[in-house]
C-alpha cells in the first residue's frame, strides 16, 4: 500500500543487483590518469575524515590544558602542561553533577518508554489484516509532513500538566513516525511461520511479540533504542520549552549556560571557588559528547543495515 512506503529510504528504480567482478573492475581504472585520481581522491577523503574529528580532538586536548595555555596557544592537539583542573572543577560543581545525573536518568527511562511504545504500535501494524490499519498509517504519514507547530504542542503539554516535569522531555516525542514505519516494515518481513507456530502452541500475542518477534529483531530495535537515546540526550528544545526550574536542567542546558557566558561565578556552578573560565567550557563539551561517542560504535554497526532493511519493503 502506497502510504506505508518510506520515501526517503527507498532506493527507487533499483536494477537487479549483480555481483561485482574485481578483475574487470581493476582493469578499468588502471590508466595513469585513473591512478592519479585515486591518489588525489584518497588524500581528499582522509582529509575530510580528519576534519570531521579535528574540532573534537582540539577540545579534548584543551580540556586537559591549563588556563594560560588555552589563552596563549591558538591551536594544539597535545597540551604542554597536562592538568585535570577543569574536570575537577566541574565534578565539584553541584549544578553539573545534578544536570548529569538527571540527563542519564531521563535518557534511560525515556528510551525504554519510547521504544516500548513504538514496538507495541509497530507490531499490530505489521499485520496486514488488522482492522483500521490503513487509517492509522495515513494519520502517521500525515503527521510526518504536517505538524501543528511549537505553540499548539506547548499548550497541549501545559494542558496535560506536564510542564516542569521530566515527562515533558519524553512523551511529546515518544513515537518517531519514521522509526515506527521502519520497525513495522521489519516486523512485516519476518517469517510468518514462526509466529503461527507459536500461536498454535497457545502463545498470546504479547508473548509472541516478547519471545518470538523481539529476539528476531534485536539489531533493529537496538539501533532505534540508540537513536532514541541520542535524541533525548541531545535534546535542547524540549527542556528550553518545558522546564522553567533551573534545578531541573539537563546537561545540554547546563552546557549552553557554561559556553555562552563569558565567566561563571561560583554561585552559578554551585562550587566554592570560581571555576577556570576557559577550561571548564572544554571539559563540559567533552562530558556532553563522550556518552554519544561511546554509543556510536554500536549504532554504527547496525544503523545502515537497520535503516535499509526496513525500508526496502513497502
Amino acid at each position: 500500500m502506497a502510504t506505508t512506503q518510506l520515501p526517503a529510504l527507498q532506493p527507487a528504480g533499483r536494477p537487479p543487483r549483480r555481483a561485482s567482478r574485481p578483475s574487470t573492475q581493476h582493469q578499468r581504472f588502471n590508466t595513469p590518469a585513473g591512478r592519479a585520481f585515486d591518489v588525489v581522491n584518497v588524500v581528499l577523503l582522509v582529509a575530510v575524515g580528519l576534519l570531521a574529528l579535528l574540532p573534537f580532538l582540539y577540545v579534548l586536548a584543551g580540556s586537559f590544558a591549563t588556563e594560560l595555555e588555552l589563552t596563549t596557544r591558538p591551536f594544539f592537539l597535545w597540551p604542554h602542561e597536562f592538568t585535570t583542573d577543569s574536570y575537577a572543577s566541574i565534578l565539584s560543581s553541584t549544578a553539573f553533577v545534578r544536570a548529569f545525573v538527571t540527563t542519564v536518568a531521563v535518557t534511560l527511562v525515556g528510551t525504554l518508554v519510547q521504544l516500548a511504545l513504538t514496538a507495541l504500535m509497530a507490531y499490530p501494524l505489521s499485520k496486514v489484516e488488522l482492522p483500521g490499519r490503513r487509517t492509522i498509517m495515513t494519520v502517521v504519514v500525515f503527521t510526518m509532513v504536517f505538524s501543528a507547530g511549537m505553540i499548539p504542542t506547548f499548550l497541549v503539554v501545559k494542558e496535560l500538566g506536564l510542564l516542569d516535569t521530566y515527562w515533558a522531555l519524553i512523551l511529546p516525542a515518544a513515537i518517531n513516525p519514521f522509526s515506527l514505519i521502519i520497525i513495522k516494515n521489519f516486523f512485516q518481513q519476518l517469517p510468518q511461520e514462526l509466529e503461527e507456530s507459536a500461536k498454535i502452541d497457545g502463545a498470546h500475542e504479547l508473548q509472541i511479540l516478547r519471545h518470538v518477534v523481539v529476539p528476531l529483531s534485536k539489531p533493529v530495535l537496538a539501533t532505534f533504542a540508540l537513536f532514541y537515546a541520542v535524541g533525548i540526550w541531545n535534546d535542547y528544545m524540549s527542556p528550553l520549552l518545558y522546564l522553567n526550574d533551573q534545578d531541573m536542567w539537563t546537561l545540554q542546558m547546563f552546557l549552553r549556560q557554561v559556553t555562552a557566558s563569558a565567566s561563571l561565578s561560583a554561585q552559578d556552578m554551585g562550587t566554592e571557588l570560581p571555576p577556570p573560565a576557559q577550561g571548564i567550557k572544554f571539559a563540559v563539551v567533552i562530558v556532553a559528547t563522550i556518552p554519544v561517542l561511546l554509543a556510536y560504535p554500536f549504532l554504527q554497526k547496525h544503523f545502515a543495515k537497520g535503516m535499509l532493511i526496513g525500508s526496502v519493503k513497502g
Partner: protein
Amino acid sequence: MTAVVDVERAGTPAPPAPAAVRRPRRRWAKVVRFRWLLLMMLPGILYFLLFRIWPMWGAQIAFKNYVPFLGIQGSEWVGFHHFQEFFSNPDFPRLLGNTLILAGLSLFVAFPLTIVLALLLNEVRLSVLKRTVQTLVYIPHFLSWTVVVSLTALLFAIGTGPLSSFLDGFTGTETNYLADPDWFRPLILLQTIWKSTGWGTIIFLAALASVDQEQYEAAVIDGAGRWQRTWHITLPAIRPTIIVMLILQTGEILNTGFEQIYLMSNALNRTVADVFDTYVYFTGIQQGAYSYSTAVGLSKAIVGLVLIFGTNWLAKRFNQQGIF
C-alpha cells in the same frame, strides 16, 4: 495447549451463517478477532491523538484571540486577523529573506556537497579506507546542536580560538566572528556542512551500491573514461534518489532548524539570524502571544505542505518517480 486457543475462541460470537453475513457484522468480528493486537496498539494511538492530533485541533487558536483563562473553546473568533497582522508586519519580509537565504545555502551548497562526497566515496576501491572515512564523517551527525555551537564558540573565540586567530591573521584585525552579522550565515553553513554532509551520503551510497555493474563494463569497452561513466551511468542511476531527497528538502525550506539558529543568535546578529522558527518562539513562548505565533507557525507549516506536494507534482510531471 489447544485449550488456550479454544478459550480464545470462546469469547467471540459464533460465526453467523454465510447467507446472513452483513458488512458491519463481519467487521466487528474482525475487531474481536484482533482485539489483543488492537489493545496492544492503544498506547501508541493515544500518543498520536494526544501529541500529534490534539495540537492540530488546538491550532485553531490562530483564528481566535486565545486567552488561557477562557480556554481554546471559549476564546473569541477573529478570523484571519493574526495572519493579516503577520503578513503586514515589517518583520515579515526580513524573516522570509533570512529563512530563504539559509535554506538556499543548504539546498545549493550543502546538498550538492553531499552527493559529491558520496560519489567520491563510491570511487574508493580500498574498502577498509572507505569504511573508516564513512565512520568518521557520520560522527558529527550524532552530536547535539548545543555541542556543535559550543565547538564553534571555542574554535572562533575572540583572539584565542584556533580558527578566529587563523582568520585574523589574514585580515590583521581581531574580529568577533560569533557576533558579527556578516559571519552569521557562513558559520551556519559551515556547521550544517560539518554536521550533516557525511550522514547525508548514506542514502546515496545505498543507491550507488545498486547500480548495475555490467553497464560500467560495457562503457569501458566502448572507451568511456571515468568522468563519462560518472556522468552517463552513475548520475542517471541515482537520479530518482536525488529527486526524492530534493522533494523532501524543498518541504523543509521554511524549517531552518530551531536549535541551531536559536543557539547561534545573539543580540548583535538578530537582523540576519531571525527566522520563522525562532520568531515563533520569541513571540509565543517569551512574549505569550499564543494566537499570533500559532498563526505564524501554521502559515509556515502550510507553505511547507504546499511545497512538498508541489515539487512532488512537478517531479511526476517530468516523468520522475515522486514520493507519494
